[in-house]
């Protein structure tokens, strides 16, 4: 096997992203959907850092920094919303949150 190239990192990042997306698609529990969302973000982080390292540019890493910040804030708010919804509907499943349907 040859040495690990940035391509490998990118393939890894894609895989992680796709796995996370799959999780979003097939889980009914909103909590687990949020966790899969985090997985997607992680995949993007890996790609960014790989690019940053291979082009010797710190901008990518700083961007990862910000992504982490935003992800943390987003998780906080999302979970707070979920808790509020749970109080109304007593369920964390997305089928029970369908008020916007046709």
């Amino acid at each position: 096997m040859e040495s690990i190239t940035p391509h490998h990192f990118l393939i890894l990042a894609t895989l992680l992203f796709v796995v996370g997306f799959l999780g979003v698609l097939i889980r009914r529990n909103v909590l687990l959907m949020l966790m899969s969302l985090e997985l997607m973000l992680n995949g993007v982080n890996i790609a960014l850092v790989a690019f940053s390292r291979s082009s010797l540019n710190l901008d990518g890493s700083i961007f990862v920094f910000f992504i982490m910040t935003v992800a943390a804030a987003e998780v906080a708010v999302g979970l707070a919303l979920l808790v509020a919804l749970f109080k109304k509907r007593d369920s964390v499943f997305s089928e029970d949150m369908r008020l916007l349907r046709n």
Partner: protein
Amino acid sequence: MITLSLCLLFLPLLSAAVTLFFLRKNGNVASLLSVFTSGGILLLSLLLIINSEDTPISWDITWFEMGGWALKFGFLLDAPARLLLFVVAFVGFLIHVFSLGYMADDSARSRYFGGLSIFMFSMLGITLADNLIMIFVFWELVGFSSYLLIAHYFTTEDAAQASKKAFIVNRVGDFGFLIGIVLTYWTFGTVNLSELADLADFDPKLTSTLLCLALACGFIGKSAQFPLHVWLPDAMAGPTPVSALIHAATMVAAGIYLLLRIDFLFTPEALNLIALLGAVMGLYAGFCALVQRDIKKILAYSTLSQLGYMAAAFGLGMPGIALFHLMTHAFFKALMFLGSGSVIHACHHEQDIFNYGGLRKRMPITAITFLIGVLAISGVNFLSGYFSKDAILLGAYNFNLPVFIILYLGALLTAVYMFRLYFITFEGEARSHNSEEAKENNLLMTGPLVVLAVLSVIGGYHALFPVSLLEYSLPDIEMVAQLPHHMWMIVLGTSAWIFGLIFSRSFYGKVGEDDPLSSRFPGFFDLCRSKLFFDEIYDFYLKKVQNPLANFLEVMELLFISGLMVRGLAGVSALFALLAKACYVGKIHAYSFWFVVGTIAFIAYAVGLIAF
């Protein structure tokens, strides 16, 4: 001068508008307004006639422009226009005065007088117009006013049907007229009458029989010639003054006037055809009139017959004589219609002549004036009708013998049925209660009768008229005076009316409830009554051919245009909406699924797998 003409034209329109908006309930004021308007029209037209003696008034403005062609609104007051203007204004005024008396007890007077004003406006428009399109516009307006006025008693079935029939049959003629106008524009590049005259002068080959026959379709419709004559007898369902004005003196004369305006376009073949058609009409209408019972229908058929005479005169190449006969006919026919109106009014709207009788003693003025009218139309020497009819017969004898024979037979018949009408109505004993109670009407109704009677007597003496009036007819009158066989014609004409008088007197002198002809010659009687089945043929066509076609078209329209195209288009949009709606579930998973699909599509496009 131009302002005078504009005032003349729009004065009746103004009166009609005022009647429409303000005087609906106020019949008295409306009738007075209308009568004064017609008086005003008479004055203005006399002024115009006097002032346009030397040079014809010719003026136009552009109404609107489309591309390179401009539609103009203009006046052309030359020789024939002056005469018709005089006839229309004068006879119109007299009939307005008569209507004051006749319609005095009618509740819808405002509507009637408003309609009369609109009619005067339209008729003046035709008289003064200087291009074919303007004539057409006012043509239609005249047809509309005729429709309005025939349907005055619209609560009766007869009147409603008759007005529809008049309008529709007129429309058929106007369709041909419109095609003629289009052809004219196509051939000559203009529809202005003066320009057309110049162009036709310059190159006589441009015109064609098709062109002038198409234009003559308007005449056939309006003047109720063969085969579109079916509306005129039915139009007698309208009030009698309307019949007098529109269906005797002026509107039906508009057809002849149109022919005169475009006579430079006519080819010899077309002229021959028109002469023949006119003569045949003259004879056919005579047969029909012979067996009618309704006094107005007899007069209507006699109008048809006389219009045939005018058409024959035109076709023989004597348009001036046609116009001259138009004028004299207007006088004595209006006289007779108004006389019949007077009789009808006195006998409480009884119209069957076999229920009259003995009215001479009870209504002397009406009887004498009516007699003068009958004498005039029969061509009794030295009355007005004699001069014009004699001229036509003489011309026919010299130019076209078959036409002469038909016209002469028609003249015989005219004398017979007109004297029949007179004898049955006014002579003998009263045959019904209404007739016994009749008494002479007031001055409003007898006044116009007297005036028209005087004109019927002296109207033929062209020397009495100012030159400006008869300028168009004088050349033809002079020409006819020079024709040979004049003596022979006088003999023939005189014998025709004398024969008619004697035959009528003996046959119809003493009658009971029924027509003597029906008992003596039943076959002939029935044949005449059938009017050659024109009405039946048209009815059959309408019911069996046109209605099924219209129904079929309606079904097609429902299916294809409404269904397929209109609702189909809506359906296609609805289909798209349904498709879009299907994506709109409330589930997050569905949304994210479509998100993926969208992303895949975008990526595929970016990669180059899909191309738009």
